[in-house]
């Protein structure tokens, strides 16, 4: 087995960008792309790239799971649809990498806790949110130096990079991100704020991370840890950049980040979407490696 076959559900901006990234992977192979609109640009692109497509949703994929050996499905639909998709695919032995804020599965922020998912036999992992992927690594970098009483993140994104799904349920973003900041970042309490800026030309995604340490911050250790973490994220998101900081003010540690996307399918300013698709591929690749090593085999339920 040279690569693990995967399906992408959702043929919107995220799904299409994910497809382009996944095609570059040495461990996963995109075989199916699932949409609901036969005329969508995403499905058209997929067909051009030689990927099998269906516009009948997950139901259109189900008959081909075994024959095409689909082991991992990336869900880039919506929090509302994800539970149904998961209910149909998980019993067939397909691992779900969930890019929606549904958060049924355990959170995964690759440089912070990807390894913790190894050997858990989980069938569903959730990628928190774009704001979470961009900020939780920094929270984790401060946390690995010393305990945090509180962590707060502010994600500022270009208006044009935020689709109707997020707009119709912005509370889901703030809640899911805040709980990811606390649980995965490792703070007693987490808070998330999202600001949408309509400036033209569109602004790059910006993220500010504020941590309150329990004791006096160890400035040198935190600086080194943050710099190292930035490099770890840059391994899969090259445009992840430390703009300013860490700034220290009493027990407050603030870090100012900017995220430029690769511009695969989405414009480079949409670093918020790019970091999601890049984290998804990273996560899928890790599981694929475990599958290829024979360490992870999800049996279809009832077989």
């Amino acid at each position, binding site marked *: 087995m040279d690569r693990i076959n995967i399906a992408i559900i959702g043929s919107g901006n995220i799904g299409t960008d994910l497809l382009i990234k996944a095609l570059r992977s040495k461990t996963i192979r995109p075989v199916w792309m699932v949409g609901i609109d036969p005329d969508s640009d995403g499905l058209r692109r997929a067909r051009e790239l030689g990927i099998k497509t269906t516009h009948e949703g997950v139901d259109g994929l189900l008959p081909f799971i075994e024959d095409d050996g689909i082991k991992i499905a990336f869900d880039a639909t919506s929090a509302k649809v994800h539970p149904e998709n998961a209910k149909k695919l998980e019993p067939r032995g397909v691992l779900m990498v969930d890019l929606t804020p549904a958060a049924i599965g355990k959170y995964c922020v690759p440089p912070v806790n990807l390894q913790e998912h190894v050997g858990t036999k989980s069938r569903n992992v959730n990628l928190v949110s774009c704001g979470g992927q961009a900020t939780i690594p920094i929270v984790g970098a401060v946390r690995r130096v010393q305990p945090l009483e*509180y962590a*707060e993140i*502010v994600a*500022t994104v270009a*208006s044009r990079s935020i689709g*109707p799904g997020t*707009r*119709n*349920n*912005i*509370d889901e*973003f*703030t*809640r899911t991100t805040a709980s990811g900041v606390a649980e995965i970042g490792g703070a007693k309490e987490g*808070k998330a*704020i*999202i*600001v*949408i*800026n*309509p*400036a033209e030309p569109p*602004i790059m995604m*910006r993220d*500010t991370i*504020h941590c*309150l340490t329990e004791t006096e911050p160890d400035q040198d250790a935190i600086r080194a840890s943050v710099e190292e973490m930035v490099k770890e994220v840059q391994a899969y998101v090259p445009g992840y950049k430390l*703009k*300013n*900081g860490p*700034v220290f003010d009493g027990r*407050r540690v*603030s870090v*100012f980040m900017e995220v430029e996307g690769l511009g695969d399918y989405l414009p480079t300013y949409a670093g918020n979407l790019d970091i999601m698709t890049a984290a998804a591929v990273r996560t899928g690749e890790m599981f694929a490696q475990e599958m290829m090593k024979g360490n992870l085999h999800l049996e279809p339920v009832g077989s």
Partner: protein
Amino acid sequence: MDLRGRNVLLHDMSLRDGMHAKQHQISIEEMVAVSQALDAAGMPLIEVTHGDGLGGASVNYGFSRHSDEDYLRAVIPGLKNSRVSALLLPGIGTIDHLKMALDCGVSTIRVATHCTEADIARQHIEMGRKLGMDTVGFLMMAHMVDPDTLLTQARLMESYGSHCVYCTDSAGYMLPNDVTARISALREGLNPDTEIGFHGHHNLAMGIANSLAAIEAGAYRVDASAAGLGAGAGNTPMEIFVAVLDRMGVEHGVDLYRIMDVAEDLVVPLMDMPVRVDRDSLMLGYAGVYSSFLLFAQRASQKYGIPSRDILVELGRRKTVGGQEDMIEDVALDLRKLRESESSL
């Protein structure tokens, strides 16, 4: 201008927008005293929350002295006639906060977005309506778009169920003609039973003039603040506005002498510094920058040795919007880097 016989609903901002000028440190006792005096003066609506609305308490915007819930539970039972509103900015506060505010007895929920992003308010406006609240859509930084764009966004808020939509001059940038153009567009384009509101800042000393222009063009709700206590150079000063409305024969129901006394006896003594047009707040209005950036820019100025005026102008140049307080320290650091590299040449 003839406004005789017109009716307006005055809405006091001193205990919400005023929280910005107080770095969100107004005490419960002060809130209770001011709100009861406003009630006795006949103020129909009083806003109470953190300056950045429900859930605004944060590193980014500043932690308030008490929680929104503690303020609301202390203030509301002490009022005889005044009703209380709460502000909510989607992206900061959530529907959980809205439900908490309703449980505390808040009658009016005001859901605020940047003037181009009304659709992020859908779930909150719909929920406000569903729960039977007086529900207001609040379009901030309205100077940044033309009247037609503002109307398109206002129609979205109306379609979600807002009883009233505001044109909000968060930067105190507008001149009376700007207000007339926007309020007229809203009045002509929205359903006749949807109310129009105006919220001004006094950074160019246009609070009163702009509010009058708004009424003339069809606004029914007008925000002002006792002694002007609010972000930047403050809001439209309520007691002056009431005096002007009295002179012009506009119906509003607030007692002039009593509101003068609230301002002078209770609110002015609260001020940490005079809330007035100075070179920094003037620059907010001149450059079109969100009024609550003022104190943040002044603190960054002290910390990094960059004039606050330069920081504010740069924030305007970068087209920052409300809520981007985190940009202020970032911009100050950028300007310091730039100056260090220039001086080393």
